[in-house]
């Protein structure tokens, strides 16, 4: 065997032995990601359902009761209290017992029948913007629907032609028809966990070699830094692939995440993505003297990487100049590949820009890390 291959194999074997013998690292590599996938998959729920609602019906009329009934009939709002005035409704909101309070004024039915236009007041807890906007939306939709039926009834009563041209919105959700967040979020969480696990393992692993002095021992051997880097990266590429496999299984069985595209494409994207994350981990280690510094450095990189990836928030919700920055974020491209392949069955013809960027980052990161490592030696 070529001497370089012998060295490479020795580093890989050593790395595997050290990893397998360290129970904490083994747990970090296998159990932790799975558990987090479970917990986060259930916890990160963007679906807003059953928003706790209080109804203050000061009209106590047939109309107000009918309105309240239809409003609460859907899945969005859930009646939990019927206080008799606004003040007690406000208290419920303040205490967090309810997120919405609907107030029907005493003159509600009278106004409505007179045709003057009646009003319903919705008090909303703005501290949870997603929930409050969904609730307001539900009320508004209801009001609009009622208004158009009332308009038609009124027209008929007055013997006029009902307004002919109305616009109705008929929306159809593609790719994720049940609008389940889990299906959308699980690939993102998988990418995020992979980022955390591999960046930390790699940066702390190399920092440990520096801290304990083994790196010096390596530097007096003919081992080249590129061979050392490749040897250190290889086992964790495999572990990362395994982690993604596990995540896909859990995603499919527990959260119903489909696999519409090619598994091979997922594997390829994962390998490229891991080159970036592992390379970044090594790069962080070259700038750290201790494992603790590497740990902190890892987090300083990972926080923005996750926040600017579209895993947790939509990229449409952030300012334009930040969106430009997300182009430099491998997490973003990997999540796009995962969602594309898993949910839409996308292929290389759709995703080649992402693949190109991921390969670029991977080679760049590993390359810079190796060069920097070389320089920091003496």
């Amino acid at each position: 065997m070529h001497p370089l291959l012998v060295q490479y194999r020795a580093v890989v074997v050593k790395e595997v032995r050290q990893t397998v013998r360290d129970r904490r690292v083994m747990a970090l590599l296998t159990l932790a990601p799975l558990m987090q996938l479970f917990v986060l998959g259930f916890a990160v729920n963007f679906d807003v359902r059953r928003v706790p609602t209080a109804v203050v019906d000061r009209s106590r009329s047939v109309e107000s009761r009918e309105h309240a009934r239809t409003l609460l009939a859907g899945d969005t709002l859930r009646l939990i209290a019927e206080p008799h005035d606004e003040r007690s409704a406000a208290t419920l909101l303040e205490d967090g017992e309810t997120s919405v309070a609907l107030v029907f004024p005493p003159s509600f039915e009278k106004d409505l029948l007179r045709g003057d236009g009646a009003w319903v007041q919705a008090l909303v807890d703005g501290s949870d913007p997603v929930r409050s906007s969904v609730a307001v939306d539900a009320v508004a939709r209801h009001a609009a629907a009622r208004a158009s039926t009332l308009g038609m009834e009124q027209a008929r009563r007055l013997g006029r032609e009902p307004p002919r041209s109305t616009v109705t919105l008929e929306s159809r959700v593609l790719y994720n028809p049940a609008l389940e967040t889990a299906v959308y979020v699980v690939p993102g969480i998988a990418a995020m966990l992979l980022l955390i696990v591999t960046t930390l393992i790699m940066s702390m692993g190399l920092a440990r070699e520096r801290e304990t002095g083994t790196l010096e021992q390596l530097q007096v051997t003919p081992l080249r830094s590129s061979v050392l880097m490749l040897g250190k990266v290889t086992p964790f590429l495999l572990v990362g692939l395994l982690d993604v496999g596990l995540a896909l299984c859990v995603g499919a069985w527990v959260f119903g995440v489909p696999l519409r595209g090619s598994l091979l494409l997922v594997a390829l994207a994962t390998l490229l993505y891991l080159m970036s994350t592992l390379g970044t981990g090594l790069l962080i280690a070259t700038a750290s003297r201790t494992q603790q510094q590497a740990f902190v450095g890892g987090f300083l990189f990972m926080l923005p990487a996750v926040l600017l990836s579209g895993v947790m928030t939509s990229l449409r919700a952030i300012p334009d100049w930040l969106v430009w920055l997300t182009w430099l974020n491998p997490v973003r491209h990997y999540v796009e590949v995962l969602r594309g392949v898993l949910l839409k069955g996308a292929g290389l013809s759709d995703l080649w820009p992402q693949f190109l960027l991921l390969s670029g980052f991977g080679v760049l990161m590993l390359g810079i890390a190796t060069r920097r490592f070389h320089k920091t030696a003496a």
Partner: protein
Amino acid sequence: MSAAETRDLELRDVRRSFGATQALRGVSLAVRQGEVYGLVGPDGAGKTTAMRILSGLLRPHEGSATVLGVDPAHPRGEARERLGLVPQRNTLYGDLSVDENLHFFASLFGLSRPDFEARRERLLHITRLGRFTERRADALSGGMYKKLALACALLHRPRVLLLDEPTNGVDPVSRRELWELLYGLVHEGMTLLVSTPYMDEAARCHRVGLLYEGQLIAEGEPRALARAHGVSPSDFESVFLAIIARRDGRAA
């Protein structure tokens, strides 16, 4: 053979500082082939810094270092194949066994399988580590650990060996064993540079250099140094104290 060829290790007017600390302030020394050279000095004198420069881990800020005629920090690493280092710190893989450490470093030096087997056999024999091959390195005693470090440094049959305080934290019996082992290596033609804070060990060397605050303040054969300062060679410790006292007196 010319004089240059017989100089296996050489520092020429080497200066190196860390921030404001001047670890080496113009040190020149040469170690001849087959010689045991003792680098003696108190804590912080610059012994480790000199060792690290000779093993290519550090570059001098001024001056130069050569090992067997080549720059030890050269990226090609020619010197590395012929140099062994036993560092002051424990720098083997503590979570790997004795055998695993040996095999790992042998692979890095490109030893073939049969060559490794033969080397392993021999090194385990001379270090008497044969019974502990399965033991994790960090479970070894101080003396055994140093012997394992020595074995790892000898795997590739280096011509020169650098030992940085090899007997630190080693009991007296193991210390003697270790020195016997080192002399065995010298008989085979190896060149040794040993640093130590212990005077009794310095007396075992062919030549010693006294390193003090980054400068080599005296150099010579232990007996000659003792005679020159009017102390008995068995009380080598006083030699150092006498030299330092005279130097500090002159400086004041």
